């Protein structure tokens, strides 16, 4: 089977799915709302939320990364549909291998992450162009790499989510287990002073770290890892999630 056919079949599942577009609309509205809660927020006359370029790429992608649960809900909805309505089973009966089905979902995650990033980048651009008094291409693109990091953040989050969907097979259960794991990891990080490795959520969240802020940095210090370290970790954790997913569906009966 050609790779293009796998992508084509995947597109045919969610392009005509009204709930997918409703969720995307909700994503746009919430992202837009997050950016317009306050303009150039100040404390004692000092700007603590700077909505001008180039720093806006960092702040903007950080804010967008805080609402990653919305693409996660879209993913959970789409994949549990395949399991609940036994379409996954029918696809295998019709000639898809389990691996090909997985490749289709990987494509969906890339598509979803890409779309969410485009929405976020679009709103950041809109806000930044309005807030920045004068703007040059150098200023605009100086910290544009944060958009790439945001994409990696989404792919990482959704890859963990996908693995949990395959394990639990239920939408609510997968969502609860996702946030359960998230909180468990936070607890471990809080309790264990020096962890020998970075944990998955830590990595994906720190890809787009909280922008430097004197007040907040005193309370919650930023991790002393370079972006390259985090990208390397992410590039290990994402394939690990997909490898486990493949292992999981390869040895399990489809009922």
């Amino acid at each position: 089977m050609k790779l293009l056919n796998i992508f084509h079949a995947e597109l045919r599942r969610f392009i005509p799915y009204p709930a997918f577009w409703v969720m995307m609309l909700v994503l746009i509205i919430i992202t837009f709302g997050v950016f317009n809660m306050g303009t150039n927020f100040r404390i004692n006359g000092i700007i603590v939320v700077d909505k001008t370029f180039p720093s806006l790429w960092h702040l903007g992608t950080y804010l967008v990364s805080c609402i990653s649960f919305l693409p996660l809900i879209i993913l959970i909805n789409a994949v549990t549909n395949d399991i609940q309505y036994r379409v996954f089973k029918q696809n295998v009966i019709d000639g898809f291998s389990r691996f090909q089905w997985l490749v289709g979902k990987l494509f969906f995650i890339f598509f979803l992450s890409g779309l969410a990033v485009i929405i976020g980048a679009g709103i950041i651009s809109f806000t930044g162009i309005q807030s920045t008094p004068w703007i040059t291409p150098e200023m605009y693109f100086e910290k544009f790499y944060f958009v790439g990091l945001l994409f990696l953040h989404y792919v990482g989050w959704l890859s963990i989510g996908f693995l949990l969907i395959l394990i639990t097979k239920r939408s609510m259960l997968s969502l609860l287990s996702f946030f359960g794991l998230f909180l468990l990891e936070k607890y471990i990080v809080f309790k264990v002073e020096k962890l020998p490795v970075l944990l998955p959520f830590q990595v994906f969240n720190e890809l787009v770290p909280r922008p430097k802020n004197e007040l907040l940095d005193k309370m919650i210090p930023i991790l002393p890892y370079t972006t390259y370290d985090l990208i390397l970790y992410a590039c290990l954790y994402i394939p690990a999630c997909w490898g486990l997913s493949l292992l999981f569906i390869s040895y399990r009966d489809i009922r």
Partner: protein
Amino acid sequence: MGPNGSGKTTILGMILGVLYPSSGSYLWFEGNFDTNPNTRIGALLETPNYYPYLSGWQNLKIQAIIKGAGNGQIENALRRVMLWDRRSSAFSSYSLGMKQRLSIAGAMLNDPEVLVLDEPTNGLDPAGIAEVRTLILELGKEGRSIIIASHLLDEVEKICTDVCIIKQGKLLSNGPIMAADGHKVMALRASDMGLLESLMNKFPMATEVHRVGEDLRVTLPASLDPALLNVYLFDNGLVLSMMSHSQKSLESHFLSLTQ
């Protein structure tokens, strides 16, 4: 064929690659295939498996992409199962019979060499059962092999040429439908039933002879030409008033094996 829980769907699930067998093996098309053999098989396993929010056409389109079939084949399949006019309606709005027919249309995409149908008339009303039965017979006449799992004796007798009877995953019997055990049962009637019974008891190929109501039921080899039996009785001075295959043959055989 087998009673509920005998393993019919499980066996089909295994040969279609959705369930893993703990032992044993199977081979499609004598191993002659380059791509996934399932693309050459049309199958309906248990219930129709489609997205409820997509239309009949949109659901079949996904199947067609996987099987490598074109839009023309989707149209042909939908017309054949009489769902062309409802192709744009959401799958959730279909009746059970329509859902079942859509599944059969999906199985027919890409002109499969083999059709695997699990309880194809499950949950249908009498008209729906007749429609599906006619469709299966037509598809069979086109030269396809059709594997049907069912616990409905009547359905199997009307549709199938060969039958395998299983119970708890074990094969109990297999062979042509009128001779699942290599025999067939004939129902005979004559004006002198006493003479008929006496002659049949002497007939060397009759393995069982007993009265059931007004008929004499005789178990004979499946290969026996009924004309030979008629000649034998006529030569012995008896004219039959009725001779037919007993509709109860499969049922009695099925029950004797599975109970």
